[in-house]
């Protein structure tokens, strides 16, 4: 085993040495990867001459962990979720990144003040903000359309099945918001037994009407099939269905759940300098704004917002579709990775136990 590893590492090193400068970026594939190739990679190669190899993974944190554990790191930059960035950083798998070394905004605001809160960690820099939102099929409701998270739980006024993800992280908050808890107090509630009970009690009211989904493509399909009349869904996916496929869907921003994606560099990355250069380039104001041309995810820098223009179709104004627009932020819950690092296991067990009981 060890010999194999040494051999393949040696061969890998040889392969890297033989080519010109390059950087290996591991991301999530799909439309998201396309947006990164267009907005980050092409201008980066044009400017620096460094080639970018894009690799896709279901969750880049998984190969990152495996590579670090096997001491055979082949990726330079990984695009991971916040909770994984924190966890991997605490476990010593990532290089620390000094926020002062990141480029300032065009008006001179230092990066530390330009990024949205929570976007800069010890070992990670956020690139996009994305949301889990409620979306409904407009053909399903005659008369009034639903507008709030509370309407999601009101199956009398708004009949039809509901779609929810099969995990506690993206369901409990919604129940609390619908039950009248302000977005800012959601985690205070979830930290207490009463709050968790309150969330489950609220979920009980629609348990019989719920279709549970796991993969991000499922809720869009359920909505398109008419299997559910309302569901929570990732905002980029539902935007794609609305704009690119002309589906009759609408988004409710009330009770949005916001996450970020982060760039990290593993210790022992094969091209550390190129990796750092790429990371700085890709998270500057212009690149983050450019990315919104290709996908409806919000830039993690405040200064990018004013530069966001039209979707690649040339007619759709992207501003209102951003999870970072003022309307979207009015009652939004920001992901709390520390809370979930502590409580994910416990709440997942309780959630599954709740699911299994009828």
């Amino acid at each position, binding site marked *: *085993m060890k010999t194999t590893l040494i051999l393949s590492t040696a061969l890998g090193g040889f392969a890297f040495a033989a080519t010109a400068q390059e950087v290996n970026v591991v991301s999530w594939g799909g439309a998201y990867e396309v947006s990164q190739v267009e907005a980050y990679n092409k201008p980066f190669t044009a400017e620096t001459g460094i080639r970018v190899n894009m690799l896709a993974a279901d*969750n880049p944190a*998984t190969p990152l962990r495996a590579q670090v554990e096997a001491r055979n790191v082949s990726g330079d930059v990984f695009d991971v979720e916040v909770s994984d960035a*924190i*966890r991997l*950083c*605490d*476990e*010593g798998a990532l290089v620390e990144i000094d926020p002062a070394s990141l480029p300032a905004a065009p008006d001179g605001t230092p990066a530390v003040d330009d990024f949205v809160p929570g976007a800069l960690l010890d070992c990670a820099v956020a690139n996009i903000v994305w949301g889990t939102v409620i979306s409904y099929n407009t053909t399903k409701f005659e008369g009034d359309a639903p507008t709030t998270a509370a309407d999601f739980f009101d199956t009398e006024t708004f009949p039809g*099945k509901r779609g929810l993800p*099969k*995990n506690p992280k993206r369901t409990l908050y919604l129940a609390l918001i619908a039950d009248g808890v302000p977005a800012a107090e959601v985690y205070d509630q979830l930290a207490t037994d009463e709050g968790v009970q309150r969330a489950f009690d609220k979920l009980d009211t629609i*348990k019989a009407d*719920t*279709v*549970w989904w*796991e993969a991000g493509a499922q809720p869009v399909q359920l909505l398109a*099939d*008419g*299997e559910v009349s309302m569901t929570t869904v990732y905002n980029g996916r539902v935007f794609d269905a609305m704009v690119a496929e002309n589906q009759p869907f609408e988004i409710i921003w009330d009770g949005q759940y916001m996450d970020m994606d982060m760039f990290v560099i593993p210790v022992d990355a094969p091209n550390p300098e190129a990796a750092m250069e790429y990371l700085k380039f890709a998270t500057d104001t212009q690149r983050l704004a450019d990315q919104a041309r290709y996908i409806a995810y919000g830039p993690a820098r405040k200064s990018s917002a004013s530069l966001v223009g039209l979707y690649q179709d040339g007619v759709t104004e992207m501003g209102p579709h951003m999870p970072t627009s003022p309307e979207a932020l009015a009652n939004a819950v920001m992901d709390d990775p*520390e*809370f979930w*690092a*502590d*409580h*994910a*296991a*416990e709440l*997942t*067990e*309780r959630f*599954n*136990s*709740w*699911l*299994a009981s*009828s």
Partner: protein
Amino acid sequence: MANAALDPHAAIATTASGVGQGLLTTADGKPLARALVRSQRRARRRAFLLVLPLLAFVVITFVVPIGQMLQRSFYNDGFSANMPQVSAWFAATERGTDPNDAAWAALAQDLVASADARSIGVVGTRVNYDMPGTRSLFTATGRQVRGGLEPPYREALLEINETWGDPRLWSVMREASTPVTANFYLAAVDRTRDDEGRVQQVAEQQRIYVTLFWRTFWLSAVITALTFVLGFPIAHLLATLPMRQSNLLMILVLLPFWTSLLVRTTSWMVLLQQQGVINDILVWMGVIGGGQRLQMIYNQTGTIIAMTHILLPFMILPLYSVMRTINPSYVRAARSLGATSWTAFRRVYFPQTLPGLGAGAMLVFILAVGYYITPALVGGSSGQLISNMIASHMTGTLNWSMAAALAALLLGAVLVLYWLYDRLVGVDNLKLG
């Protein structure tokens, strides 16, 4: 006495006495026995060399990784390896000892060292398995003490966070201070330890795994029975039809077998969902009203239907291969001796299909017990199986020790069933084709 020459025993006796008189040798004068042994050894070595690549492949890709994975179920050195001093204090003292100054000093020094080495996350994760909510206690404390901590350590740590004084935390740390632990197995059967280390059931709303184990075995048994009921007549038809028709039917059995599992699962979703094909037809025919569409998917029914369909070929193929070899004249003989067709089937035909049935049932049951993608997609909340929890611990909570413990229990249960099968039916009667 002409018979004596033909008596085989006599012949052996003659040869044996010949051996006794003088050693048999090969053409070049070596003793025959030794030459034989040597050539056999050479043949064995050559055969072993031929098998070696496969053996190495199996060991490297199957035995080693699974062994390593199973090892995680009872071995986790996340705490003991990174907190050596306080682990040593735990080893030297009795359970229930209140932490003294030495313990606090050891804890503080370990925390500082672990925070500097950036391994504090690993430590926190390990303790968090047994006491939810403590991971951030370790990481947050680690951030504050990086670079050093001044005595008195007890007061310093309690000032950072008073949870450090919680007796339950110390009891959990004591548990974690030895790398070998049974706690993951306890958790996998909905058990935990209280402050004094006694085993007890977890709170009712946290109980999940025992239910899921029972459900997994129960649903697998139901699915095995269904594949038998559906597959037996088909296999019989395949085995008795003329070659041309049976080949055509065989393709119909094999075609779905060769189709991607995901495609088959999603086509069941298209068929069974409330706005799906079957419900549409029923409503169109007026069997049910538009408001009473049947819920056939995203529950146990969906899991059973989809898995039965997907696993059906694993029942049909062994049954078919056994039925092909059954001589039809046996049944004809029974009939001509006066047996009714039912009796002939029950007493003569069916017993001969048992090896195929056993093999098919074993295959279907063992595959069903480990099924994961189909229940995840069509199972809703009531159709989840234990493998979905294993997957969730592998990829979601990243608690690989827990996943390994659940997997080990599942493996153990299947082995017990295999042993039972061997005792009741006999594994020799298994015929896979």
